């Protein structure tokens, strides 16, 4: 088994999930509460990665972070290295690719929090941030957990975007799914089967545990 690919995939998925948590929560709160009339454009953009072929997304991200783009040039100037075919470039692409898998469950969870609880918090003197941390987050965390698990699992299994942005550099951008592809190409079906099975079981377990936990959490809070 290609342990360095597994390690790389886990690292990428963890960092992508954390990045999406930091960026996704404010975005999801905005989507849940904003009354801006053009909000649907933002919603459409957030959802776009679900319907786009990974190659299309990968292609534009590649252009967007490439040496001729402002982002790529700024990164080059600061670090002296290029973003494409690096782990950092892969992280950016993965975060974009998994954005809807984080933001949609986040938004759904946050918007189910009763508006009156938020108003009650305001009337008790608590500001926006305190209300978010002490009321909205505790009441919507099952949904936020779902979003995190989905982002993690989705990043773990991504292929097309990784290939477009990362190439296939061992230890740098060769993730587990690329490794399986290489093994199949080399007609090493035994190794491919082993790695695929490991990925399959891992993904299944993570999802099963998450949904199992959620059921129990909801049961504790709202006996039906």
């Amino acid at each position, binding site marked *: 088994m290609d342990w360095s690919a597994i390690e790389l995939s886990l690292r990428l998925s963890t960092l992508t999930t954390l990045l999406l948590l930091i960026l996704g929560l404010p975005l999801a709160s905005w989507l849940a509460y904003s009354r801006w009339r053009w909000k649907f454009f933002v919603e459409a953009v957030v959802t776009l990665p679900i319907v786009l072929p990974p190659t299309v997304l990968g292609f534009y991200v590649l252009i967007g972070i490439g040496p001729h783009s402002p982002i790529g040039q700024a990164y080059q100037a600061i670090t002296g290295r290029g973003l494409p075919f690096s782990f950092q470039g892969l992280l950016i692409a993965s975060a974009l690719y998994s954005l809807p898998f984080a933001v949609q469950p986040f938004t759904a969870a946050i918007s189910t929090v009763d508006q009156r609880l938020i*108003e*009650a918090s305001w009337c*008790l003197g*608590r500001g926006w941030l305190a209300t978010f941390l002490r009321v909205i987050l505790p009441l919507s965390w099952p949904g936020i957990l779902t979003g995190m698990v989905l982002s993690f699992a989705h990043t773990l299994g991504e292929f097309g975007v990784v290939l477009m942005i990362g190439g296939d550099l061992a230890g740098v951008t060769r993730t587990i799914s690329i490794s399986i592809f290489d093994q199949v190409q080399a007609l090493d079906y035994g190794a491919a089967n082993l790695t695929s099975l490991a990925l399959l079981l891992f993904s299944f377990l993570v999802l099963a545990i998450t949904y199992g936990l959620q059921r129990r959490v909801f049961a504790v*809070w709202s006996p039906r």
Partner: protein
Amino acid sequence: MVAALNFHFRKTFPNGALIDADLQIRLDPPTVTVLFGPSGAGKTTILRALAGLERSANSVIRFGRETWVDQNNGMFIPPQRRRIGFLFQDYALFSHLTVEGNIRYGLRGLSANEQLLRTSELLERFQLQDLATRHPHQLSGGQKQRVALARTLAPQPRLLLLDEPLSALDGPTREALRGELRNLLSSLSIPVLLVTHDRMEALALGDEIAIVSEGRIVQHGPIEEVFRRPLTPAIAKIVAVETVQRARVLQADEELVTLVAGEARLIAAARDFPSDVKEAFVCIRAEDVLLLKSLETVSASARNRLPGIVKSLMHEGPMWRIELDCGIPLTALLTRQACEELALQENDRVLAMIKAMNVHLIPRSS
């Protein structure tokens, strides 16, 4: 200048409803003001505007010397900084916090020790000590209400806003808690605004009443006064004056006005009824109508003695509601005991007695 709450709020909502309310409430001594009116009249919106939960470009709110909202300079103090207490209709307790956590939530700027002290003080005052570690879904309706009140009072608000505080409770609990709430409100010595559409609740809890109709405050005054002396027939209907009848003025002097309504002749205290007005509405509350069966005993102070026929008798709580035909349709409210003493039945002949001072007149310009 007497410290007062000045409220002006005007806003058209997307569904077409218009709120255009002006209200002034004296803050010292603190009173309980009831916002009363039919459902959908805008009572809750007025309360929410006071809390800062509804905004309008066309509003001015001043609390004593403080300005909370001013349309002229765009000033808006958010709810967090108004130091008010808001009790939501269904209490809006935080389901993920315990009773203690809920009460403690609004305590800011206090040391952990002081928070603990204040929380246990409130737990004791509202008899919640044994429930301190429970979650809201483990509480009865009455217990939830106590937790919500304790949570609202914890940060020592300067103005208390209660939105239908008893409506989420079932009948018996509701009546029991009405008295408790009255005692609590009078012990607090902070101004209270309370929304209700229940007449009993308004009478039990309020000092003053503001009648809300179609987004406007149409009458505001001491509660007895407003219930007995509505300014218009529409307000008379809102405060449920049982008898409202058109009448023609026969004769008026400084003390008394004599009128004809239907086939009945009525005498009313003149008060400040304008002498040049010839038409009026007479308003008579059912509890002011006394019924007699024999025609000889007549109290001297009751100027109106109207012979009539009992049309129907109906239970209304501990009272009987009796519909009469006395030349005008008239309603009387009698205790069960009084009803039994008279042995009243349908089609009985009776004498209805009404004091002149209990016949309220609304001038009607023709």
